[in-house]
């Protein structure tokens, strides 16, 4: 990682509703930990430092987590205004991730199963951050992949546009020479509609992809859903496949709405 101008870039890391796994992935960035610490001034990241300020300005902001409360929207808009580059990191921020499963049922039904007293609960419908602010790129994955994280950080350091993969997990299976688990073993694999980046991890380990990287660009989700139906998978199981990750995305909604109860 080379920083041409030698001046440390100001980095902000913001967490909304999520497992904080993305933050961990950045803190513990394999062999790049020391490089990151030497090139970036971590101006704000609550899990890393008790100092710092959320006021910015930031050269680069990374935002993880699903938006589930209204104060997060207000803060997010401010962060956008104070950041030169803002990247969404991880499935929660990019496509709603696991917390967005909540959007598949009426909110009150779900909330009542967890709390008897809802007077202090102020949740809104879960959504991706791009529903509220413009983002300069998505560091995809759950957890996010090292390749995309490295690409985002080095691009900001060198002032170039980052390149993120825009094809499906199927391409990675072909590159690895995997036997197709969908065609050969009739597993309901989400690989054809899921963005690449994991290295076809699940199919390489004898299981169907479950779309943790979220939808690829312009997938034909309804065609895959119909293929699942043809394979004898029940409508409710098909609905669950397209609402595990990315339930709030227009890409996966095209399939899930066909099988909604």
């Amino acid at each position, binding site marked *: 990682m080379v920083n041409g101008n030698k001046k440390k870039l100001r980095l902000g890391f913001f967490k909304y509703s999520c*497992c904080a796994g993305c933050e961990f992935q950045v803190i513990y960035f394999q062999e790049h930990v020391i490089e990151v610490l030497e090139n970036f001034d971590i101006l704000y990241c609550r899990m890393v430092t*008790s100092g710092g300020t959320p006021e910015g300005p930031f050269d680069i902001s990374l935002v993880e987590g699903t938006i589930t409360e209204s104060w997060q929207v207000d803060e997010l808009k401010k962060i956008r205004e104070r950041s030169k580059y803002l990247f969404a990191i991880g499935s929660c921020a990019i496509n709603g991730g696991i917390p967005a499963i909540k959007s598949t049922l009426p909110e009150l039904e779900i909330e009542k199963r967890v709390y008897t007293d809802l007077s202090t609960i102020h949740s809104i419908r879960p959504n991706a951050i791009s529903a509220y602010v413009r983002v300069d790129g998505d560091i995809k994955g759950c957890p996010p992949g090292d390749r995309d994280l490295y690409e985002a950080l080095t691009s900001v350091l060198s002032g170039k546009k980052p390149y993120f993969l825009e094809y499906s997990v199927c391409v990675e299976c072909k590159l690895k020479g995997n036997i197709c688990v969908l065609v050969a073993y009739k597993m309901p694999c989400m690989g054809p509609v899921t963005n690449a980046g994991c290295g076809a991890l699940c199919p390489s380990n004898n299981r169907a992809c479950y779309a943790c990287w979220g939808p690829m660009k312009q997938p034909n989700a309804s065609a895959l859903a119909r293929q699942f139906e043809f394979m004898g998978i029940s409508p409710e199981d098909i609905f*669950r496949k397209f609402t595990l990750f990315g339930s709030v995305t227009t890409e996966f909604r095209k399939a899930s709405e066909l099988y909604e109860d």
Partner: protein
Amino acid sequence: MKINVNYIARVEGEGSVNLDIKDGILKDLKLNIWEPPRFFEGFLFKRRFDEVPDIVARICGICPVSHMTTAIRALEKALGFSPSPEIIKIRKIMTLSQIIASNLIHIYMLAFPDYKGLESISDMLPKFKSEIKRLIRLKEVVNNLTALFGGRPLHPVVMVVGGFTKLPSRDMIGKMIKGLESIKTDAVETLKMVSELPFPKFKNKSEYVAVHSSSGYAINEGLLVSTNGIKVKEDEYYSVFKENEVSYSHAKMTSIKGRGSFMVGALARLNLKFDKLNGNTKRAAKDAGFSVPDFNPFHNNIAQAIEVVHGINECIELLDSLTLKDHEIKVNMKEGEGIAVTEAPRGLLCHHYVLNKRGMVEKANIITPTSHNFMNLEESLKKLVKKYIHENKKEIVLKCEMLVRAYDPCFSCSVH
């Protein structure tokens, strides 16, 4: 004087400590865990049993393996499935690797800066570069161990209800054992480093609770025991513990019925089963000056370092004993109910599921270590503030933050 430590740094998730001191007397103290709820127990309703482990992994970015293992065990009990001894061993390797990794992060990145007057790990450079390098060496091997059986270190994909979808080769196991051997010295050095930190002299005589077994250092399965005489099966969890909603916090607070607070985690485990550690670890702990009973919650960091040494040794033994025979993942669907209680890095973790005859979740309940520690941490904080009440505001704030961090809470887990 009102003191609000809003958004405590270097812990996982979002929480604050609010206290009110009047005329040198502590009037009120509350730990407000304001992490936004994600409602896992709510949206797990009508999801199928086989997707539950992948969903609950996302409760926590530090201990996904613990949530997965606990959920898998509870679901297998509901479905009437008994895993083979080999699967049980691999699951123990997985959860031990998680405990080692989590303890390391907590020791080096979250707690250590407190004792050197630093704000973050970034400030540790350049003075503590060799410590950071040691952390990287340790973490690299341990992450590779989780990935060896899980496919990746964070949110693994290979562990499912019924077993593991793929097993590594004998050759890969051999390489992993060598890797673990190579970090044994680093683990002992970590323990030495932690034991030399200037911990505040402080005592809170807690009731410690842990999973216990007569054979070995129990992690995934055993009786629930305490220093004050609890000894029950995991299925009887609700007969001893009660989870309550708290008006000022999104996390629920769990107490022992008829008694109150208790402490779980590394220090609780060592207080209850120090004798089950392997010989090397016992010696290293003794050299570091640690002995039980120990009622200083700040020493939780020492306990974590001792577990790093133990975990590496036990993983080597377990790896050595594997047969690596492939198994078919075959679980029959049926109606049922299951409770599992395990040791996550931060202590007792309970998952409880009710499944209908199509394998769909009818009811889910998840009670995390930080919910178990919540009441005890508040009591501990009150005691600590009383001790330092005549110090200036900055000092009181720092001491409170340090104590919260010593418990290593996970607010994301606790609210979920």
